[in-house]
């Protein structure tokens, strides 16, 4: 599990911290790459910009994607990922604050694998992250 990278796309540093804590509490010890907005996430995925030097063969095991972000938002990132051969099949879990039906539907339409709403109760959040880690990092087999 160690070599499997998780890409966390999240602009809110509080949420980054809390998500990292939840992952830690869920015993998910994978390396977590944090992209602070959609543009950075795309740079990472396509080895561009400040990530132009990284190993192109290493792709994240799962992408935890926030929707509401400055510059390039989550849905746009998802669209670009699904349009590119390299990231077309990459599991994407939308992890967001929004409970709007619209967002949920758009996400699934654009090819999200899962949609999780971040609960306010931290304990519930930990529970959710735990289940996510179990499924996407342990049970799920990528093609």
């Amino acid at each position, binding site marked *: 599990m160690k070599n499997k990278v998780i890409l966390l796309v999240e602009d809110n540093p*509080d949420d980054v911290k809390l998500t990292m*804590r939840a992952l830690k509490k869920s015993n998910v010890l994978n390396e977590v790459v944090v992209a602070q907005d959609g543009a950075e996430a795309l740079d990472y995925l396509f080895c561009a910009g400040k990530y132009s030097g990284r190993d192109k063969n290493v792709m994240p095991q799962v992408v935890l994607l926030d929707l509401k972000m400055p510059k390039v938002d989550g849905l746009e990132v998802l669209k670009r990922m699904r349009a590119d051969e390299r990231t077309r099949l990459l599991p994407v879990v939308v992890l967001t604050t*929004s409970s709007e039906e619209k967002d949920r539907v758009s996400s699934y339409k654009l090819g999200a694998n899962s949609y999780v709403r971040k*609960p*306010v*109760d*931290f304990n519930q*959040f930990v529970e959710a992250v735990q289940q996510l880690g179990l499924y996407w990092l342990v049970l799920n087999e990528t093609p």
Partner: protein
Amino acid sequence: MRINTRLKLAVSVPVFMSLFVGLALFFSYQAMEKDWKNGSLVRRIRSSVTELNTFVQSYIHYHEERPKRQFLVEYDSMTQLIAGIRLRNPEQQRLLDKIGLNSESMKDLFLRLVSNYEPSDPAGNAELLAKAEERLEGQLLIRSRDMDADASRLRSMVDDDIRRAQTRTFTLILFVVLFTTIPLTIVLIRTMKSITTSLSTLRKGTEVIGSGNLGHRIGMTTPDELGDLSDAVDHMTEQLQAVTVSKDELQQEVEERKRAEEEIKKLNDDLKHHVTQLEEANKELEAFSYSVSHDLRSPLRSIDGFSQALLEDYGGKLDGEGRDYLQRVRAGSQRMAQLIDDLLNLSRVARSEMSRVPVDLSKIAKDIANGLRKSDQERNVEFVISGGLTAQGDERLLRAAMENLFSNAWKFTSIHPRGRIEFGMARRDGQPVYFIKDDGVGFDMTYVGKLFGPFQRLHSPGDFPGTGIGLATVQRIIHRHGGRIWIEGAVEKGATVYFTL
């Protein structure tokens, strides 16, 4: 007088007149024929008288047998003639009778003359005889002249009669013709005049009406067919005017309608404008609620998450009170998150699309009851759900409403060891009324008006959790279905929520 009567009169009067004249001519001809016959007889009597005279003279001169015989034959024929005649005029009859008497005495005288002359008395005194003969001849002559005069007089009298009869007939005819023709002519002229006048009045009237003045009336009151025609035309004009008036009214109505349509169009445009504005406002509201959903919750998550982190990582450094405070911070943020969720739900209920399909309310109730039972299996609550209750509505919204109502019932029966929650339907004024009834804590009816207001609660959060938005949401759902909702209850006697759809 009616024209028909006048014309009948004009035809029948000449007919009667001709008949009358014909009859008059017939009778006068018959009368005159008798007169003519008498006249010719009288003429023959007169010529007989002349003949007799001639025969007497001839006999006197020649004393032959032939004139004597001729006299007697003529006398017989005259006597027969006289016997055959009957005259109306007594004067004439007297004359005729006198002629008869004279002829008779003439015959006697003649016979005496003959006997005198006959040689039956051969010893006669020639002188005496001649004297007697002379006397007889004289008497005969007197008789003869008398008769001639009488016959002539009679004849002229009869001729006068004929002339008078002719004059009478002629005068009669003249009078009849004059007395019928003159009034008839007057009647015809007057008829002609009145017809011409009436026709002229009618023509003028119809011209006025024809030029569009439907208020005009001919008003001719002559008691004949043209008067009737005038009445008929007036009646027709009246009807026409009525129809035209209704046409005018119709036109007015059409114009009014046009105006109303324009007004409606204007209102419609206004409405469209308002709809656009509303749509914009709705979009703004959506953006707003999206922000609320996202941006208000994020800080809450930070508050809750880091409070938990504090408790976990630094809990040992805090005393019991400090930890309690942090717990309260967490509880507060979670409650606020719940409030935000409920508020968003309420606004979503108001603006979400609605479809109307048959909804099985009984099945929804059973599903919800099962869910509630599973959530807390310790609770001893009896669910009584009537089967087969369906209604037209939006399934998602109705489910949300019933979930709210059932969870309320579930919540407010929790303080009792046993609970009973019933879902059913009753009819009021023929309308189906659905109800959810519990035997829970109930409420004071004094505050019933507050129950449906958002954030209005009758219990403290310590007794029963909740944000006070549930019933407001339910009410909004019921109202969106065009239904009514009300609630009845009493403290410790439970509550019943009724709604129609």
